[in-house]
């Protein structure tokens, strides 16, 4: 029972870590606190659902369509809506408030479209719902696949950020947006790219979630919250931190759901959030608070 809960928790945590990486790119690099992030995830989940049911496309192939679509869409959102706000606001505080308010509006737009098209019911489809034996505990194959995909994508992103010039530029902007232009980095372009990359990761997370969880048009808020908790817990802009924090959150949630009550998972999430904010505002794995 405990082992099975732990394994399920790790699998869930892998997905959380993946979606948190996208948000940490958007907030840490592009300086946009995106409250519509979870709704992008849900939109991608609906996309996978439609491709699976109407075109008979399995979600693995769906990823090849939806992830680039998430990238392009986020790129456009940044260029059309957020960049003007970033240019207008001189200081960082102003941009934070403006971007929160604007993406809050965006949340209602995306959610409203999902409600019009799909209604408010819970959705799911059956893909690879066969049990696999791991360490003597049966685990659904789709969950295992979801975990493998999260590791693959997250690992790929980590290599991209640490081993390429592009990644170095992104990290430079995250650490010192003021000094990055001095070494010839185009901060605007990097921010746009990081925001779009974050959107692509959200889309990937959405497809993965749709493989093994039920979702609904109004579930975006909860995913935004979970991604944010993981980001703050891991330290803003810290990719390994997001990975560790995601796994912790997934395990804690599953333990609460299996041993206390499934209705209290969000309460557990919040408790962790508050504890981290009060005790270590820079995150469990972050550098000292500035």
């Amino acid at each position: 029972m405990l082992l099975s809960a732990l394994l399920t928790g790790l699998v869930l945590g892998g997905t959380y870590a993946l979606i948190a990486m996208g948000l940490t790119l958007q907030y840490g690099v592009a300086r946009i606190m995106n409250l519509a992030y979870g709704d992008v995830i849900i939109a991608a989940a609906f996309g996978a659902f439609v491709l699976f049911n109407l075109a008979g496309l399995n979600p693995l192939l769906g990823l090849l369509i939806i992830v680039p679509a998430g990238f392009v869409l986020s790129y456009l959102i940044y260029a059309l809506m957020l960049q003007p706000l970033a240019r207008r606001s001189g200081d960082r505080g102003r941009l934070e408030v403006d971007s929160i308010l604007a993406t809050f509006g965006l949340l209602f737009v995306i959610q409203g479209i999902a409600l019009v098209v799909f209604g408010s019911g819970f959705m799911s489809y059956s893909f690879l719902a066969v049990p696999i034996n791991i360490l003597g505990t049966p685990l659904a194959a789709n969950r295992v696949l979801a975990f493998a995909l999260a590791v693959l994508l997250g690992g790929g992103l980590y290599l991209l950020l640490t081993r390429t010039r592009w990644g170095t530029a992104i990290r430079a902007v995250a650490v010192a947006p003021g000094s990055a232009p001095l070494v010839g980095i185009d901060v605007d372009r990097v921010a746009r790219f990081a925001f779009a990359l974050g959107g692509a990761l959200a889309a990937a997370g959405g497809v993965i979630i749709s493989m093994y969880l039920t979702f609904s048009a109004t579930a975006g808020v909860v995913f935004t919250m979970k991604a944010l908790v993981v980001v703050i817990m891991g330290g803003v802009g810290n990719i390994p931190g997001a990975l560790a924090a995601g796994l912790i959150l997934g395990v804690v949630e599953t333990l609460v759901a299996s041993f206390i009550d499934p209705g209290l998972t969000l309460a557990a999430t919040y408790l962790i959030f508050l504890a981290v904010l009060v005790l270590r505002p820079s995150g469990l794995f972050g550098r000292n608070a500035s």
Partner: protein
Amino acid sequence: MTARNLSLGLLGLVVLALLAAAPFYAGPYPLGLLIGILSYGVLATAWAMFSGPTRYVSLATVAFFGVGAYTVAVLGDVLPYPLILVVAAIIGALLAILVGLATLRLAGVYFVVFTFGLTELVRQLVTYYEVNVTKTLGRYVFLPLGPEHIFWQLLALGGATLVLAWWVRRSRIGLALRVIGDDPVAASHLGIDITRTKLVLFAASAVIMTLAGAIQAPRWTYIEPSIVFNPTVSFLTVIMALLGGPNRLVGPLLGAIPLFLLFEWLSANFPNHYSIILGLLFIAIVFLLPNGVLAFGEGLLNRLRGLTREVAR
């Protein structure tokens, strides 16, 4: 200045008297609209009382509003009505102090995020309690209160809120809040107890929101977590205050009137596309009117005056 204040106060009293008589001449539908406008006017004014000067954007309005409504639903048969309102106000204050102590020390964005999810958390906790402890989801509210009673109570609450907001703006605490909003570091060097000042105002604004919910509980008859903790209420409160200008006394109230009417019209005519339109409207307001309509209008007026002066020369 005093003469102006006096005449403004008199004008306010006249408007108040005219409104107080409304249930005697307005039909049920206009009265319903007036209740809605007043309700959002109260929420937006209370929101701006804290969020205007401090620039801490709270997205938790409906958490307090819903707690007020639920308190009435739970205690409706047990306690006399005025006492229920007192209990609701105390619960709202306690919740606000709890949330405030945990989050008000933190940087703005964490506060926004926490309040953003607070509604969802309170809703889950209430649902959990109802399902597991009382074994019923949803309650009936039977109180002998007609729409006119609700209207008068809201009017009184609205009047009190405006007076409180006016007093806060003039008092030391209002000044302290503005300093905190402009520069928290300077504020703490001036010897302002930042956390306590913010906490007091946050709790006051939360109590008003809780009462607004408690007063309106009898209107629903049937109450369920998904009805009274509807995040759209928080969303509307913020756009109304932003539209009118959160740094003006009557700004939020003036923002509430057109947006509430628009909201009614939209939900009657485009029930399915309602939240899309609202989201777009929100984005447009953030883009076009960062300081609110009143500030925009004044800026326009000043420019016009400058222009006429130049022409006269």
